[in-house]
């Protein structure tokens, strides 16, 4: 990146904000249509009631909670890249961190909708907020569900804060190049930013502290989400491995989503000289690393289920891959290999097998291969969440309590709508704000010097 000058960075990034090509509008219409489908499905569910979904006894947590956990997980990569990789001084983060942060904010916003959709009576969403009811009884602060409310709202707020702080100097750069109404808007959004070193001094120090605060937050949020499950007694959920297992999975899926977004963005906006093969490869290595952790966690769950000698644990971990005991028996088996088992094997293939080609350098630097693998991982991680949430509820302690779950067209519509919501917000953002952080990219460049040999 030594050949790039500071002025090139501004020119290249701000160029993405000019009038887009018609294909952009087609993209917006496509995603907005998916969003509308979701909104329509939700409206119908609100009108008719939660009975329209497949959620019932015994599977009380279905696709909506799957989507909640999936989207929260997607959100993890942004804070990982903007906070953890900032503290560890990974230089490759600079070109992708803005996109990853935007992704985090939009993913957590998407995730935040699902507990509200799931509880059905969305107009009572404010019951989640800690305040005393009419008999002056407060919410239960010992419940993991309330921990989750605090964890997710804190995560959303801090992600937005991080995002906004990083944007302000770039908005000031946009202001300096704008005229008329745009200048007026950018001036008000720039919060008095004038690039003085005093401001940079507070900014750099504050950013460091925010990163230090956000780093444990990244690991805590999905740990707390995992405790929604692990604090219960349900076989397959009640396990101490859940927190690290969920966090590794979240980083794994989040980074895959960053690749899914950054690879097309890089081509559309001509950002190849910033988002270099080294950047892609570094993300691919992190994905491979977290894939191994996730694979190890799957194996550990099975081993402990067997080693514990607990028949209920053993039962659920037989059910997940093989279905009913005897199903695989060609004589006595009923031949049922239903959706729970498909979701398990899809999960294993996408999350454990499909990232294995990343061991090869040629694959790590091939954008098509990376894009394909990232899509597979996204699919695999959705099925992982589905597998965890649904299969354990299908088979708890008492066989009389067993049941199945078939999700309905309304749940499909809302799920598709969540992708529409996320991607619509992202494409609108990519058009309205710089997709790379100008100051951070410049920090990675060689500073201009009249006497280059003299610097330390």
């Amino acid at each position, binding site marked *: 990146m030594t050949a790039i000058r*500071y002025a090139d960075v501004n020119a290249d990034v701000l160029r993405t904000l000019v009038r887009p090509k018609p294909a952009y509008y087609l993209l917006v219409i496509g995603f907005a249509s998916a969003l509308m489908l979701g909104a329509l499905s939700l409206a119908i569910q609100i009108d008719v009631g939660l009975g329209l979904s497949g959620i019932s006894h015994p599977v009380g947590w279905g696709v909506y909670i799957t989507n909640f956990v999936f989207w929260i997980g997607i959100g993890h990569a942004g804070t990982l890249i903007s906070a953890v990789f900032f503290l560890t001084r990974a230089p490759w983060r600079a070109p992708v961190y803005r996109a990853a942060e935007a992704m985090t904010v939009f993913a957590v916003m998407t995730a935040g909708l699902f507990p509200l959709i799931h509880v059905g009576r969305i107009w009572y969403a404010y019951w989640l907020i800690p305040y005393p009811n009419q008999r002056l009884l407060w919410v239960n*602060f010992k419940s993991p569900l309330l921990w989750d409310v*605090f964890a997710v709202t804190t995560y959303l707020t801090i992600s937005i*804060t991080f995002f906004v702080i990083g944007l302000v100097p770039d908005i000031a750069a946009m202001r300096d190049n704008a005229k008329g109404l745009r200048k007026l808007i950018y001036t008000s959004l720039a919060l008095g930013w*004038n690039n003085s070193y005093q401001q940079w001094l507070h900014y750099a120090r504050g950013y460091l502290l925010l990163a230090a605060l956000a780093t444990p*937050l990244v690991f805590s949020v999905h740990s707390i989400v995992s405790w929604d499950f692990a604090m219960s007694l349900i076989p397959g959920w009640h396990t101490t491995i859940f927190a690290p297992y969920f966090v590794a999975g979240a980083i794994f899926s989040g980074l895959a989503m960053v690749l899914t977004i950054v690879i097309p963005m890089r081509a559309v906006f001509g950002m190849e000289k910033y988002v270099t093969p080294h950047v892609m490869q570094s993300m691919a290595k992190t994905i491979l690393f977290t894939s191994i952790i996730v694979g190890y966690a799957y194996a550990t769950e099975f081993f402990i289920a067997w080693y514990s000698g607990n028949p209920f644990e053993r039962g659920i971990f037989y059910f997940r891959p093989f279905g009913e005991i005897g199903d695989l028996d060609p004589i006595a088996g009923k031949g049922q290999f239903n959706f729970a088992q498909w979701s398990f094997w899809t999960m294993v293939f996408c999350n454990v097998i499909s990232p294995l080609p990343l061991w090869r350098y040629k694959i790590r630097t091939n954008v098509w291969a990376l894009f394909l693998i990232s899509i597979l991982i996204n699919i695999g991680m959705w099925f992982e969440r589905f597998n965890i949430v649904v299969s354990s509820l299908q088979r708890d302690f008492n066989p009389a309590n067993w049941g199945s779950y078939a999700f309905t067209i309304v749940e499909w519509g809302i799920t598709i709508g969540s992708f529409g919501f996320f991607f619509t917000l992202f494409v609108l953002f990519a058009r309205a704000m710089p997709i790379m952080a100008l100051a951070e990219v410049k920090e990675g460049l060689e500073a201009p010097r009249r006497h280059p040999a003299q610097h330390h």
Partner: protein
Amino acid sequence: MTKSFNGVWGTFEYLDETCAVISTLREQGRDFSVMSPFPHHELHHAMGEPQSRIPFITLVCGAVGIFFGYAMPSWTALDWVLPVSGKPIVGIPAFTIFAFELMVLLGGLGTAAGIFALGLLDLFRKRLPVSQRFRDYNRFSNDRFGVIVRCDASAAAGVEQLMREHNAEEVVREFPGRAWVDLAAN
């Protein structure tokens, strides 16, 4: 604190020359500000490694968060006691999650507010040029460094010479209240 800016400002293309000017101004004990497209550690060294008060704000806000994180659930638990299976009424391990989350939340929001509040406060403490020429100059957010020196007219020539010696692209004197003095000097 003066109400309006009096002094000299210059723009630079190269980091090493900007740092050289800053170091000299610091040795001379001048009151100056620096403009930069991003924070660079060499500028920080040249300016004598100034410190920000942000960590103090973060500490206070984070501590307030920890306090409320423990205090609020404890108070609600004691306000309406609900014994469950002999478990402690005030469950410190469970409440630690709220303490942690509120520490991060308030600490983060306080830090963010502090970044902009202190930056705005510095605008009043350290006046910047008010001329149209300065306001129209838009390359500090792009690819140029700037040095702004607050001084009286008698010192302006020396500052101006220092900047020119280090190849400043533009050097501008601004003494709004002393226009007649500059005219007479020219």
